[in-house]
């Protein structure tokens, strides 16, 4: 039998036309759907999300995380913290997230401390010149904590401690930054 390349052009075109739809349909059927979880049960939703993420939907991680938070808000309880922690540890173990990303996802929502305050440089040189942005980021993070700590985990103590920490940081930064800038004015 002659190879297809040796056949006349019309024959080759006809062959390609026959093959193209089957190739296209093969692509379509292998594309993951990446649907949001339909269940309202957090454990089942997490299992479904894990399956989707492993099946090629990892680019949708943010959306899935948000979906899981929404589902958890429907049944808030302290144990939800553990569910999210285990889900994030699994995501890091599977290589979907770096360890640092997993920590950020967890701490932003479920810890009192503010990840927006991560910095390697001293306050006078780095935090003070960016004070407004730092406080704005903290304010946004406080909204995430309201969701994670208060609405998902019923940890009102934790949330109000975070809220107070925000106010304390605001006060201490105001004083510290005034002191830093006074030093610059003296020079």
């Amino acid at each position, binding site marked *: 039998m002659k190879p297809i390349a040796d056949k006349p052009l019309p024959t080759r075109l006809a062959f390609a036309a026959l093959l193209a739809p089957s190739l296209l349909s093969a692509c379509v059927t292998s594309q993951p759907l990446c649907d949001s979880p339909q269940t309202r049960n957090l454990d089942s939703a997490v299992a479904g999300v894990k399956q989707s993420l492993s099946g090629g939907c990892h680019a949708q991680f943010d959306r899935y995380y948000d979906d899981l938070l929404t589902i958890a808000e429907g049944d808030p309880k302290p144990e939800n913290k553990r569910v999210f922690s285990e889900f994030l540890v699994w995501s890091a173990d599977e290589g979907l997230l770096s360890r640092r990303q997993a920590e950020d996802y967890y701490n932003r929502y479920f810890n009192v401390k503010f990840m927006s305050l991560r910095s390697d440089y001293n306050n*006078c040189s780095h*935090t003070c010149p960016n004070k407004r942005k730092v406080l704005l980021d903290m304010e946004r993070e406080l909204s995430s904590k309201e969701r994670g700590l208060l609405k998902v985990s019923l940890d009102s103590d934790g949330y109000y401690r975070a809220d107070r920490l925000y106010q304390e940081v605001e006060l201490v930064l105001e004083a510290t930054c005034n002191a830093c800038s*006074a030093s610059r004015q003296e020079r």
Partner: protein
Amino acid sequence: MQATALPRSRPNARLLPSLLATAVLMSVAASVYANTPTIRLFPTTVVEDLRQTGNVARDMETGLQEVIGRLDQQRELYEQSKCDGAENDPGCQRLARQIGASYLDMLTIMEERLPDMEHTVNNTRISLERSLRNELGKKMTSWSLQETLVGKQAASATTAASPTLRGRSGMRLSERFKQYYQLVATSGSQGDQSLAVLASDIYLDMEETSLLIQRTRQEIARATLMEQLNQSFGIITPEMMEVVGGVKSILFGDEESRALVAGPPPGSVEQAYRSPLEQ
């Protein structure tokens, strides 16, 4: 009259009890944390500056208390004599001149005492400024500052022993210092986190006090001149009574301005779980 800008926005005087209380609490704080590695926000110079400011404030308070008491009595007599609306009556004019003279006395006392007050407040402010800049500004990152504020027991999210942040307005300085004292005296195990807030709060107060004294000094000369002119006519101006009211609220407190800060709702959920991802 611009002197009305003096008092209401931020109560700052009656510094004596507040500053003395602060001096005491600094000593308490210093002894509590003497054996632990700690940030040095309150060196002895700050305590000494506060004590000095307290002494100056006491002198000013004593002098003003007497003259303000006299002003109150004169004002009462003026009202009882139904002088409002009868300003042309010779008796009322005499009373008005007496009130004006007392008002001038008050301005004179303030003029005499304020330079000392300004000097000592500025010393305290500068000392605290240096401490804050070095200890929190240069030696700490925003993360380590947060860790200092949260303290060791962040994970348990306990708030029982933590100080209550009052908000930075609406409360008299002496009341606030009294609270500072109570907080430090009753929460010896807290460590640096409350001291950082305390130092910041006092420093910002001192900054505002300093500005207020500066503005007041600028206005006193003008207010004195105005009143000397008024004396010849025996007039009581509304601004005059406003200034007196303002000074009184600084010295003796203003209940209306006390800010009430709502506490968090009672949390009934246990937080035993700690994630391995937690920072």
